[in-house]
């Protein structure tokens, strides 16, 4: 057995460019047109402070790029490090099952310091969905497998922390400040910056 070498094993440099292995489909949470010229996928964690900082950056980019951009959010909760992250992700899925994913997504990022179960239910009330149904679904972990599917699709795509972004399916390894991200997205969208936004 010792002589069964795997010649591909050491050849790593060629695949340093990480790509999204699970394509964006109908199952994803997306904002923007399906035929947008650029798709930005974020793997994020609602309790991760870096994701919290990225949230207004993404919103500004959405304003600037308008219909040129499709933005997709996938879950990547590091639940052992952020003890509310898993439930927060499940709460957003619970909101999604009532047709209000993005409202909950925004509420969670705007209240990163208050993500206990009671507060999750409060946000449900504030965005006008059924609070008790959300609480029941959290207790029963109805949406845990969906969250885990996102997480594993991230692992298989080379996500190594949060937030990790993919632009048209290729991992963005550079900084994600507004100027950098906007420049890269604008170039990926065909280099037509909007000035009227």
């Amino acid at each position, binding site marked *: 057995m010792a002589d069964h070498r795997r010649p591909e094993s050491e050849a790593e440099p060629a695949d340093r460019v990480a790509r999204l292995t699970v394509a964006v489909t109908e199952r994803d949470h997306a904002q923007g047109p399906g035929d947008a010229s650029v798709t930005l996928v974020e793997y994020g964690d609602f309790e991760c402070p870096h994701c919290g900082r990225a949230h207004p950056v993404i919103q500004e980019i959405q304003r600037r790029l308008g219909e040129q951009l499709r933005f997709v959010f996938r879950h990547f909760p*590091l639940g052992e490090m952020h003890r509310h992250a898993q439930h927060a992700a499940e709460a957003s899925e619970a909101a999604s099952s009532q047709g209000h994913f993005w409202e909950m997504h925004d509420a969670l990022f705007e209240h990163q310091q208050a993500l206990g179960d009671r507060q999750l239910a409060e946000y449900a009330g504030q965005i006008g969905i059924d609070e008790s149904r959300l609480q029941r679904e959290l207790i029963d972990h109805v949406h845990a497998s969906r969250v885990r599917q996102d997480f594993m699709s991230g692992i298989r795509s080379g996500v190594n922390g949060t937030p990790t972004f993919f632009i048209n399916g290729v991992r963005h390894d550079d900084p994600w400040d507004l100027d950098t991200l906007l420049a890269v997205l604008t170039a990926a969208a065909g280099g037509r910056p909007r000035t009227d936004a």
Partner: protein
Amino acid sequence: MSIPSTAADTTPHGALAAGTQAPDFSLHTTPDQLVSLSDFRGRPVILAFYPADWSPVCGDQMALYNETVSEFQKFNAELLGVSVDGSWCHVAFAHERHLHFPLLSDFEPKGQVARLYGVYREQDGISERALFVIDADGIIRWSHVSPIGINPGAEGILRALESLPQESQHG
């Protein structure tokens, strides 16, 4: 957080390659508990050498593995983190981060196991950020050295585990 590399840190390395017998070792995982590689014969082992407890990228890497331990267990594989930190340091780090896998202390003689695997950085006294997937017979089936500032993620490990022959996964 993913920290971009500042330089092409791809110096040629001497990490033991696939096909090599994994050198056995015994290291402390707690101040009064030793772990040997041979304890795990019959199961795949993932050795994750990392530069230091507490440094940001390492923390992220170990946090990530903490979330994927259950995936490794599907292959009956044991994950062992290894750094030159002392075992009391490991205890505090594992406690603070709620780590669910052992951290081994390559502390005395410092870096001896990292040297055995060809991943010790003489210039700064820490190990490379290096991964080894070892099969049930103790043969290295995959190895990978990341740039020191880059968290390699878990995809390479899972791919390597998937390529192990079935009998190698379960002894």
